[in-house]
C-alpha cells in the first residue's frame, strides 16, 4: 500500500514540475557546456549537480574551478550567492514539519524554483500525502537539473565547436535576474548599491581581488542604509 501512496505523490508532483523541467534542462545544459569548455568531463557535471544543486552557484563555480580559486574565496562566494536560501528555509519550517527522514532531502533540495512552487497556494489532492508531494517535487526538479547538466557536458565534450563566448550565458543569466529584480523591487537602492560598490572595488582592487572587499562593503552598506530601506520598517 505504501508504494501506492508514493505513486500518488509522484503523480501529483509531476505536472506541477513541468515548467521547472523546461528551465532546468536548458539552464543545466548551459552549465554543462560551460564546464566542458573549461576541460571538465561529464562526471564533474554530474558530481556538481548531485552535491551542490544550485543553479547560479554552479555557473559561478565553473569560474572558480577553472581559475583555481582559493578555498576561502569559494566559501565566501557560496555564502554570499546562496545566502538567500536561509530565508527560503525560514518560510518552509512549517510545511516540512511532518516529513520524517525525507525532510533532510527536501531541505537539501530547496532551490529557488522548488521554493517558488511550494510557495504558491496549490494544495495536492486530499488522497496525496503532503510529504510525498514535496519529496517527489524536489526529486523531479533535481533530476531535470542533473539530466540537463550531463547532456550539456556530453555535448560540450563530444561536439567540437568553437565555444568562445559561451561564457556569456552566465552574464546573460545574471542580467536577466537583475532586470526581474529591478522591476519588482520595492527599493532599487540595494541593486544600485551592489552595482556601484562592486564597480568601485573592481577599480580599486582589480579583477582578481575585488570580490571579498565588495561583499564586505555591501554588507556594511546595507546595514548603514537599514533605516532608509523597506526592511527598516521591521524596527517598528
Amino acid at each position, binding site marked *: 500500500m505504501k508504494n501506492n501512496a508514493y505513486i500518488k505523490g509522484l503523480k501529483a508532483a509531476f505536472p506541477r514540475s513541468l515548467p521547472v523541467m523546461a528551465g532546468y534542462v536548458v539552464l543545466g545544459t548551459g552549465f554543462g557546456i560551460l564546464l566542458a569548455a573549461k576541460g571538465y568531463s561529464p562526471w564533474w557535471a554530474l558530481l556538481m549537480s548531485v552535491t551542490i544543486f544550485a543553479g*547560479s552557484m554552479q555557473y559561478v563555480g565553473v569560474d572558480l574551478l577553472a581559475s583555481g580559486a582559493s578555498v576561502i574565496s569559494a566559501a565566501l562566494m557560496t555564502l554570499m550567492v546562496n545566502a*538567500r*536560501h536561509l530565508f527560503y528555509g525560514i518560510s518552509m519550517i512549517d510545511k516540512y514539519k511532518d516529513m520524517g527522514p525525507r525532510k533532510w532531502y527536501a*531541505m537539501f533540495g530547496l532551490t529557488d524554483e522548488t521554493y517558488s512552487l511550494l510557495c504558491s497556494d496549490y494544495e495536492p489532492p486530499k488522497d496525496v500525502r503532503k510529504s510525498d508531494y514535496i519529496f517527489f517535487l524536489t526529486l523531479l526538479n533535481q533530476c531535470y537539473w542533473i539530466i540537463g547538466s550531463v547532456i550539456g557536458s556530453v555535448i560540450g565534450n563530444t561536439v567540437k565547436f568553437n565555444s568562445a*563566448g559561451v561564457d556569456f550565458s552566465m552574464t546573460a543569466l545574471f542580467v536577466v535576474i537583475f532586470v526581474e*529584480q529591478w522591476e519588482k*523591487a520595492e527599493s532599487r537602492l540595494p541593486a544600485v548599491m551592489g552595482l556601484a560598490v562592486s564597480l568601485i572595488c573592481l577599480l580599486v582592487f582589480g*579583477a582578481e581581488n575585488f570580490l571579498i572587499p565588495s561583499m564586505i562593503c555591501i554588507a556594511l552598506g546595507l*546595514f548603514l542604509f537599514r533605516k532608509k530601506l523597506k526592511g527598516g520598517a521591521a524596527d517598528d
Partner: protein
Amino acid sequence: MIDAGHSLILIAVMSVITIALRVLPFLVFTKNTPKAVMYLGDVLPYSIIAMLVVYCLKNVDVLSGSHGIPEAVSVLLVILLHKWRHNTLLSILVGTICYMLLIRLWF
C-alpha cells in the same frame, strides 16, 4: 582543468556551505528569526545579483581590444529583450548567440 584535487575540494566547499545554508534555518530559527537576519534576507539578493553582473564582466577592458563593445551590446540586448518578452531562456539564448557572433564577425 587546473588541478583535479583542488577542484574536488572546491566542489566539497560549495556543497557543504550550500547545504548548511539550506538546513540551518530548520535547526536554528524554529521560533523567532532575528530582525537583522530577516532584513538581510530582504535586501541582500538584490545587491548580490548586481555584484555578480560586475563579476561576470570583470575582465572587460574598456581601454583596449574591442573596448567592451560586444559585451555592452549583448547586455543591452538581453535587458531590452527581457523587458519586452520576459522569457528567461529566450533572453539568455539570444544574448549569448549575439555575443558569440559579435566576437567572431566584428571584433
